[in-house]
């Protein structure tokens, strides 16, 4: 039996609203660093995480222009974690709930992000060592 682990995450929070998103990304990043195969099913607001129209902005309070502020963009973090996973022999697969994308109009996503449904979450859960749901409140 292979030692390689597969973990599935179901996320619900949109970007820039609370710390659960950051926590979820931290956990995904740890799994990527360990070379796990990581599946992410983004449900509801979480479909905004790999939205590529997120853009950096200046911050007058900090006295920074956009370059100096170097504002974190979740889609860049996700892309970086996919590279981390690949570099360690793993993979980051990401499915956005299609209906959730339609409701929010966030169709522009990272190239490897696919459109899917809860049936994909189920298939992943069946094939994973475990599943972690991080819901919104």
């Amino acid at each position, binding site marked *: 039996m292979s030692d390689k682990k597969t973990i599935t995450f179901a996320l619900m929070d949109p970007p820039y609203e609370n710390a659960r998103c950051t926590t979820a990304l931290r956990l995904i990043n740890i799994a990527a660093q360990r070379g796990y195969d990581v599946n992410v099913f983004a*449900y509801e607001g979480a479909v905004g995480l790999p939205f590529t129209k997120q853009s950096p902005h200046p911050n007058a309070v900090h006295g920074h222009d956009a370059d100096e502020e170097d504002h974190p963009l979740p889609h860049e973090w996700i892309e970086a974690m996919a590279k981390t996973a690949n570099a360690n022999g793993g993979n980051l697969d990401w499915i956005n709930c299609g209906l959730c994308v339609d409701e929010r109009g966030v169709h522009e996503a990272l190239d490897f992000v696919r459109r899917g449904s809860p*049936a994909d979450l*189920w298939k992943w859960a069946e094939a994973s060592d475990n*599943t972690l*749901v991080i819901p919104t*409140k």
Partner: protein
Amino acid sequence: MGLKVLSIVESAYRATIEEQDDTILWTSTALRGAGANVDVLLRGNAVNYGVKGQDASGLQFGERKQTHPPQLEDDLQRLMDLGAKVYVTTDDVAERGLERNDLIGGLEPISRSGMAKLCGNYDQIWHW
């Protein structure tokens, strides 16, 4: 033996007016309809989903009406009709001043102290 999942719904009325349903009950119903073995446990404020006679109709902004408000008791019934067990946490029901006959039929009562044992009957717990 296939995967067996218990979905615990605790966050209640999360955008149900916008969504026209509870998104986790919806997901569970979609999965059940596709043959997945998923049951649901209502706890916290979500026990109120089982209350009979809820009416979320009447929302209107300007001329735009919400024509299909959520009907959560019907959604629970649909889920049970598909073979899912829907558990309701009796302690949470009592703390909210609800009586058993305030709830729709078919819900399976479970005490808070019985939840750990119940979770042991499932391969995965999805806590929403």
